[in-house]
């Protein structure tokens, strides 16, 4: 079966512009649905990145000064070992910090080039004896004034709250994405059905003179695919913008943990790729089902 490019382009274009309001409605619904899906994926990845830092039962992190003296590290370690409120602690030296740093910035080699292990602060990951917030606060206050300690960052209240909120909201977003994907698929179906109906005379003639089913079907499927892809393209902008907002907001929080909530551009591209594929498949299948149902009726 020979398809001619000019035939396909002309037919698809005509279909797309025959009913612009319906086409635009379809594209926008696809865009909203995929934006929600992208946002959900984004938040999930962000939560994953935070949890990487506060893995296992580590409840807070003690950041040391950049110019900390070895004996100050030693005395801090000593303090942590002796305290009856602390179950375990682990020292993260510059090499290990640098390793993690490399993992975070794997996509941004220009940042890696600027940083050497010596420039990075070291830290202790601390697990307290009991999870009581008040006693953790009290011990943290004591640690914070030790010589060589820069800051104490909690996993307990804020982070846990945010991370469970994020997890919950990403599930809600996925659910909303699913609902609007159903709406998008139905609009797609109707949009193609309308296009098929508008061209019923052509289709009748095509069938009579012996055009194959695929020949009749493909311009419509291409139209659905195009609507899906344009919608996905718009949603990628939305996801990109959301990530920028995350970056601005969390980056300004001055927290080493949260500054990684926004994902690097490489992962945005991966999310974008997923959205494109979902949009294209949604479009082509919705259109294919609609046109097949009409052709066989």
């Amino acid at each position, binding site marked *: 079966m020979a398809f*001619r490019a000019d035939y396909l382009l002309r037919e698809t274009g005509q279909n797309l512009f025959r009913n612009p309001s319906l086409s635009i409605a379809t594209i926008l619904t696809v865009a909203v649905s995929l934006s929600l899906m992208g946002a959900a994926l984004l938040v999930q990845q962000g939560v994953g990145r935070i949890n990487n830092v506060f893995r296992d039962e580590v409840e807070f992190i003690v950041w040391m000064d950049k110019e900390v003296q070895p004996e100050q590290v030693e005395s801090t370690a000593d303090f942590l070992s002796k305290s009856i409120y602390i179950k375990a602690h682990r020292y993260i030296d510059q090499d290990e910090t640098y390793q993690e740093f490399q993992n975070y910035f794997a996509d941004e080699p220009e940042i890696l080039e600027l940083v050497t292990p010596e420039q990075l602060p070291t830290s202790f990951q601390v697990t307290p004896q009991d999870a009581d917030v008040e006693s953790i606060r009290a011990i943290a206050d004591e640690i914070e004034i030790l010589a060589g300690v820069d800051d104490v960052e909690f996993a307990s209240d804020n982070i846990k709250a945010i991370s469970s909120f994020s997890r919950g909201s990403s599930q809600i977003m996925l659910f909303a994405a699913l609902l609007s994907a159903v709406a998008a698929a139905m609009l797609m179906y109707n949009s193609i059905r309308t296009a098929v109906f508008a061209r019923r005379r*052509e289709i009748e003639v095509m069938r009579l*003179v*012996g055009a194959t089913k695929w020949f009749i079907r493909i311009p419509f499927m291409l139209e659905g695919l195009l609507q899906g892809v344009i919608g996905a393209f718009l949603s990628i902008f939305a996801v990109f913008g959301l990530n920028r907002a995350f970056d601005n907001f969390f980056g300004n929080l001055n927290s080493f943990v949260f500054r990684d909530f926004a994902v690097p551009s490489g992962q945005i591209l991966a999310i974008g790729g997923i959205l494109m594929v979902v949009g294209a498949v949604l479009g082509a299948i919705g259109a294919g089902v609609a046109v097949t149902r009409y052709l066989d009726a």
Partner: protein
Amino acid sequence: MIKLEGVSKRYETQPEPALIDANADIAKGEFVFLIGPSGSGKSTFLRLLNKQEEPDAGRIFVAGKDIGQMSSWKVPMLRRNIGSIFQDFKLLPTKTVSENVAFALEVIGRPRSVIRTQVPAICELVGLGDKMAKYPDQLSGGEQQRVSIARAFVNRPLILLADEPTGNLDPQTSIGIMRLLDRINKTGTTVVMASHDRGIVDTMRKRVIELSNGVIVRDQDRGVYE
């Protein structure tokens, strides 16, 4: 070329069968009239031949092939060998004469070079060489039917099915259309034409198959309407 063996067809929405135990054998190059009043089964007869309808019983052969056994993806190939024209022409109003004719070649994937030579040639043949750029609503009924004949014949089918092609035309115009169909028939194309136009059938003196309430009641060479 066309053979029906005990073909019956009944539509779900209608109490009476449309065609009952029809038997017919039409040779290559024949010109056959299907006559009978409205609802006698003429259109059903034609629609069964290019698989627009499926028979409930019996077998239909077209060009030596049992089309009941034909898989659905081969149906387009069958239809490329069967041209169809209708009482209401079925032209596309947004396309010019030559675009309407070219459309039939385009959608079966014929190359542009073929379309460029075939379309003007066939328009010339049907007598519309000077009206190729006109739209259907700028043409008379007879001219529109000529366009539809050009579209049906441009792919040089073995068979031409005509369902009341003169039903909307005045007698004078109808004669012109019949002359054209006769010329096409003389090129070796088998023509099966449903009609209840007494004057045309009597003038042409071709084979007549008469249907009455779905039954073939007469099959006569060089027949008249009666």
